[in-house]
């Protein structure tokens, strides 16, 4: 069974000054254990896509199913990592309490163990008693990833998760994501505007058109399981695929960042 099935998904915002169709007729699936990157021009409706999948907004057309169950409201086994870690972590809670936030239904002991495991997985063993604002940006985003993982979601949604950190930290976090999803066999849907990142991380890359977004290409990434920031990024397969994605994006007549 597919982990995620998106069928004919469309969403139109209705405002005072008319309507705006952000996404239209989106069709794709994600298999269990896959890491799928969605790349598209800025403003093409990537965030709308994530919000409809996570049940935060109700799409006007089409359907989303999570392992066979239609999404109606926020699914209970789904985690989201947002771009803006400084605003998605709760500043009044310690790092550990932030990671424990979604684990309301567990016993106290299980919560503590899960949070400790998740923090260890992202390399933040000693930081549990600190507060998010005492950490660097990269470390804060690790906390957000730990929180998402501790929830043990069937599907992890990531909305431009590494767009707000410096290049060095971004490489580290990308490799961190590849490692933990191998270790925990997590299914990931990651939205980005960065072509290189989508090819480096993905098992598949979905290329979206400009708004209203539709899927213009669904590409397999033939780079294998183990990837390396230097050798992978300089391999022929990587360079070819990056050029193809870039070509698909620029042929869509919208500004590409």
């Amino acid at each position, binding site marked *: 069974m597919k982990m995620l099935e998106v069928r004919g998904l469309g969403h139109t915002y209705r405002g005072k000054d008319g309507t705006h169709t952000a996404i239209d007729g989106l069709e794709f699936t994600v298999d269990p254990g896959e890491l799928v990157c969605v790349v598209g021009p800025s403003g093409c409706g990537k965030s709308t896509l994530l919000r409809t999948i996570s049940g935060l907004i109700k799409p006007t057309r089409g359907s989303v199913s999570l392992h066979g169950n239609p999404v109606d409201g*926020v699914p209970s086994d789904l985690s*989201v990592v947002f771009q803006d870690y400084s605003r*998605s972590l709760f*500043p*009044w809670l310690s790092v550990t309490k932030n990671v424990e936030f*979604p684990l309301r239904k567990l016993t106290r002991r299980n919560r503590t163990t899960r949070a400790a495991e998740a923090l260890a997985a992202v390399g933040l063993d000693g930081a549990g008693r600190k*507060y998010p604002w*005492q950490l660097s940006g990269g470390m804060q985003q690790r906390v957000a990833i730990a929180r998402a993982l501790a929830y043990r979601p069937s599907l992890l949604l990531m909305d431009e998760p590494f767009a707000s950190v410096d290049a060095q930290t971004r490489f580290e976090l990308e490799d961190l994501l590849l490692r933990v999803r191998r270790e925990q066999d997590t299914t990931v849907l990651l939205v980005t505007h960065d072509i290189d990142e989508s090819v480096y991380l993905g098992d598949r890359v979905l290329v979206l058109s400009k708004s209203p977004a539709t899927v213009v290409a669904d590409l397999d990434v033939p780079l294998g399981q183990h990837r390396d920031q230097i050798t992978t990024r300089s391999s022929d397969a990587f360079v070819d695929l990056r050029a193809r994605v870039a070509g698909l994006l620029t042929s869509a007549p919208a500004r590409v960042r």
Partner: protein
Amino acid sequence: MSLIGLACFFAVWEVASRTDLVPGYYLRPPSAVLPRVVTLLGETGFQRALVATVLATLIALGIAIAVAVPAGLVLGSVPPVRHAVMTLVEFLRPIPSVALIPLAVVTIGTGPDTKIVLAVFGALWPILFNTMYALDEIDPLHTETARAFGTGGFGVLRRVALPSAAPFVFTGVRLSFAIALAVVVSTELFSGGTVGIGQFVLEASAGGLNMDDVLAGTVIAGLVGLGANFGLEWLHRRLFAWSLPRGGER
């Protein structure tokens, strides 16, 4: 450092009083008033007045919090209620509590409940407004994050809205303490009949121009406000370090 302003104030007062800029008989110099402050604090009669005033202030503050925080939460999160009630609120808010003393004395009497009711009326507004506006300031991404992890409406209110509004509410409480104290002392002073610093000052000024006592009582009222503010500020820094600029880290 923070006491320099206070020291300057006393110095100016001393000079003004000694140089006959103002009649020294009425404006007694701090060198005469401050020793009186110390002896007054040792007198049982005055201690009783001080405790009565502080207690009335604290009770009024407690009631104001109990009323204004829930009311602020409702006004802040239910727009129709807000639209319906805001005109009334804006009409009532500018009315000085002191202007209501005659009405309160006629309807409630001259007991301690009068000054508490009036102080509650004065202290409500900063807490109400800070609670209400704090809800507007909640980061939508905090709410969205909580919802994405399956937190329901009530959970979001309790686990996101309340903690993120708490520092603003606390600032409201700090402002309200000074207001409650001022209203309690004023009511004692204007209506008499109830034990407190205000009544002590009233009697001292009526009794025979005992200006040392009048000024000492006034200074003590100021010191109570100052002390409370220091205490509440300290508590604010301890409880809400996360909300301070740069998270309170220096």
